[in-house]
């Protein structure tokens, strides 16, 4: 009997506790920077899009929600002609971010994407592309990978040495 009365008393004391409820639309939850939310396509420091349409993200996607088509501009630089992600299929696993060699595709901590019509959940490139660099500032694929493609000249990359003119080494 005493334990019953004690339970009632202890439950009553909960009046003086703070409530644990997070009143959502007015108070947003804290999300870590590496939270896997909405997918974006980022640009590099010169405001050119980073994506080189290598199809790696579409290949690794477990649910095949990414669809893209590669094309090249006049100087030979590759870019996606269209880039489509079906967010009703996307499972936000982050494999595409891990697979991307240019840090173009990234997942950001935003989840508020509710729609009434399922067709509105398919995002095109103009909806995915952002004007900033996302989570990896200062990274330019062409400078690190040694691929020229009209972006840089030979020997101008970060870990490249300037080519030596062999004809200068004559005895």
């Amino acid at each position, binding site marked *: 009997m005493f334990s019953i009365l004690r339970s009632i008393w202890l439950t*009553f004391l909960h*009046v003086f506790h703070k*409530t644990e409820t997070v009143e959502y639309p007015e108070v947003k939850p804290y999300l870590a920077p590496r939270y896997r939310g909405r997918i974006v396509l980022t640009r590099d420091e010169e405001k050119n899009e980073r994506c080189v349409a290598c199809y790696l993200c579409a290949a690794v996607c477990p649910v095949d929600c990414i669809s893209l088509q590669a094309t090249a501009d006049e100087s030979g630089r590759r870019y996606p002609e269209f880039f489509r992600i079906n967010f009703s299929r996307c499972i936000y696993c982050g494999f595409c971010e891990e697979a991307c060699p240019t840090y173009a595709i990234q997942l950001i901590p935003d989840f508020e994407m509710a729609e009434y019509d399922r067709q509105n959940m398919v995002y095109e490139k103009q909806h995915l592309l952002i004007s900033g660099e996302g989570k990896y500032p200062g990274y330019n694929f062409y400078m690190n990978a040694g691929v020229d493609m009209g972006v840089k000249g030979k020997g101008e990359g970060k870990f490249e040495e300037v080519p030596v003119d062999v004809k200068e080494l004559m005895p």
Partner: protein
Amino acid sequence: MKYLLIIAGVLLIVLSIAAGLIWVERRLLSVWQDRLGPNRVGPFGLAQVIADTLKLLFKEDWVPSFSDRPVFIMAPGILMITILLTFAVIPFGPNFYVFDSNIGILFFLGNSSLGVYSIVLGGWASNNKYSLIGAMRASAQMLTYEVFMGLSLMGVVMMADSFSFCAIVEAQKGGWFFIPQFFGFIVFFIAGIAETHRLPFDIPEAEGELVAGYHSEYSGMKFGMFFVGEYLGITLISAIIATLFFGGWLGPSFLPPVFWFLLKTFFFIGLFILLRASLPRPRYDQLMKLGWKVLLPLALLNLLVTGAVLLYMK
């Protein structure tokens, strides 16, 4: 004319308390469970009552083809009728009662026994094994607890020399009855919880959560009537405890007597909800054992001692 006004007043107060309990219970439960209850629908979530009522009205009110149709439709009505009838004999204030019956307590006990019918008929008419089992368990539980519900009130009757609620409130002017009749109060409180099948005695409804229970086949407003009928039962038992053991409408005169009555009733309604928030549900045989082996002897002992003391003091 004044009579009609009193009837309308009593009905209005009682029905608005029962409907408002939908909101009150959820907010109070959440206070004791460290969370916020409904606070979106209106100011402080008060329009939740209207939202729930509209939802129940718009639901499909289906009577099963395999059920016993007239009994099925009648069962929730019986609950409401018996409880509302009992409110007619309870005094809300010195002249604020519908009917001062000189057998008020017997009327209340008779109506609560009739209330058992609503559960039994509901379970029977559903034509469904689980409903029937739930209804049988509920009726056995309510019968058991009714035995000593009446006995525990006999002490109060002996002290006030009358079965009428108004006379009992008048007799408490010298001191509220819960001090001399403390064990009677405890036994009646526990029996009252079992009569309205609230936690921790809500086997009829717990079966509803787990399997089916007596209101499994009910939907729409018929279920709404069982639901509001349960809240009316809580209000009734709280009002009767306030009247019989805590002085009814008696209280300092700087506030109207109706206010004191409602304050005491709300205090006990809050206590019912606190019990729901804090206690686990006992097993069915533990419940019946408690009734027959502990509370019935306690009620009889209370009766014996009260009678002996009153005889000695004469």
